């Protein structure tokens, strides 16, 4: 069966190092850290007191007062990123068949702040239930997809994907597949997360998943480095407009890249730890290559999951070497989480965008903050340390892995007719 081709025609983001695509790329290229001491709440009693927060965001600039009360921060970030991407893709909503326009949006947790506030209110009361009627429709992790569809009138397939830190990669893969199969011509896809709050930080802290390097917070997200001690929590959203190629061509749309393959697998191993030999990661990357009909040698850049945890980074590099063999040494590998922190369910979307922009600019964004070689990581791998590197990038693969053992890999290719 011949699949229809899928291209990227719009991008949008709000994340710890950029409130627009232009700002995001500039900071990616320059290796800017998005980390800072936490300002969203008083974190003085927490083991970790820093994060990669979104900066200079004022909900009132984007939403009216009535609207904003019904939107958890994760949905606010979603709508802001979508707005930029929709303006960027320049779609004429008047002339589109909106039943062929869908939304698939990922979030690992959804409205955790809403959940926290409502339950706190109940627990502090006398037992009389006074939950807001907006509690559930504000919190649930599919509601961002719902809000996006209402805003733009998209009436095609509409739902959320949930696979922890792989959520938005799964969203992108699903959207790609539905376009390939003709279920829709265009998708708003991506993901958002907003869990820099007491419950999010406290929960991940208890798992010992987060860096507690408060003194060196700016350089604490240091994937592959021997002295890394956990991931740094990020937040924000990334949006991609995926479109069937003929549809994009017919309306003269700008094309960033082609989405050529997706791979998905389950580790079937452990709640939070990756399989030590990267079993699931190997299967996911292999499936993506096969789906894209590419050989390992056709890929030039891998934007790794690389969270800055030993239990994640080491198996992932092993998996890359297992899949790519000798070609692994020709690849540029980088973890942009060293700059953005880990956006959890939104990670796949902002890293997909980093991969696409890398192709467009023929430049690999760096892995910053690396200080010391980890003996368990092959020193011959090019981890793109410290500085961005110019090179030919024909295709880029983006990996994301989520707690629960969910793995997803997406491949973007430089567009050619």
């Amino acid at each position, binding site marked *: 069966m011949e699949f229809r081709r899928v291209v990227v025609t719009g991008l949008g983001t709000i994340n710890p190092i950029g409130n627009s695509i232009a700002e995001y790329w500039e900071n990616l290229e320059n290796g800017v850290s998005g980390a800072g001491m936490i300002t969203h709440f008083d974190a003085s009693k927490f083991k970790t007191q820093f994060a990669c927060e979104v900066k200079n965001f004022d909900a009132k600039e984007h939403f*009216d*007062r*009535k*609207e904003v*009360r019904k939107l958890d921060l994760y949905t606010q970030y979603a709508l802001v990123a979508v707005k930029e991407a929709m303006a960027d893709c320049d779609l004429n909503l008047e002339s589109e068949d909106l039943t062929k326009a869908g939304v698939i949006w990922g979030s690992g947790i959804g409205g955790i702040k809403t959940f926290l506030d409502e339950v706190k209110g109940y627990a502090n009361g006398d037992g009389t239930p*006074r939950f*807001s*009627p*907006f509690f559930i*429709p504000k919190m649930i992790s599919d509601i961002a997809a719902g809000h996006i569809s209402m805003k733009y009138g998209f009436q095609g397939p509409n739902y959320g994907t949930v696979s922890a830190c792989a959520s938005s990669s799964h969203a992108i893969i699903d959207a790609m597949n539905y376009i390939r199969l003709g279920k829709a011509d265009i998708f708003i896809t991506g993901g958002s997360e907003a869990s820099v709050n007491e419950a999010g930080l406290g929960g991940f802290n208890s798992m010992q998943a987060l860096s507690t390097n408060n003194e060196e917070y700016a350089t604490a997200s240091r994937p592959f480095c021997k002295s890394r001690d956990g991931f740094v929590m990020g937040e924000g959203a990334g949006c991609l407009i995926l479109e069937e190629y003929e549809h994009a061509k017919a309306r003269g749309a700008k094309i960033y890249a082609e989405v050529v393959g997706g791979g998905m697998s389950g580790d079937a191993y452990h709640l939070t730890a990756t399989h030590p030999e990267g079993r699931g990661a190997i299967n996911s990357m292999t499936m993506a290559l096969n789906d894209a009909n590419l050989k390992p040698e056709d890929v030039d850049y891998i934007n790794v999951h690389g969270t800055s945890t030993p239990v994640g980074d080491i198996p992932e590099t092993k998996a890359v070497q297992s899949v790519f063999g000798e070609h692994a040494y020709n690849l540029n590998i980088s973890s942009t989480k060293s700059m953005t922190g880990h956006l959890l369910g939104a990670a796949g979307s902002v890293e997909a965008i980093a991969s696409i922009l890398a192709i467009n600019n023929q430049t690999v964004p760096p892995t910053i903050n690396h200080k010391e070689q980890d003996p368990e990581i092959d020193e011959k791998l090019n981890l793109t340390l410290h500085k961005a590197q110019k090179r030919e990038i024909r295709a880029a693969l983006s990996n994301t892995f989520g707690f629960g053992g969910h793995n997803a890999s997406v491949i973007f290719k430089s567009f050619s007719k």
Partner: protein
Amino acid sequence: MSDIASRVKAIIVDKLGVDETEVTPEASFTNDLGADSLDTVELIMEFEKEFNIAIPDDQAENIGTVGDAVSYIEENAK
């Protein structure tokens, strides 16, 4: 304006994001002030909290305008 009426008005302005001048006694929550069914439920809950009363669902259904809300609360608030 009575104390109750001004407190009711303040809640409506805050929750529905409308202008104070729109909140007239005749104004209907759904037809004039842009409230949907969930907004209306939220308003009733806010009135209950503000005035420390319980408004049963069958009574709440009859509160459709600003004036309805003020009269109900005037009759039932302790």
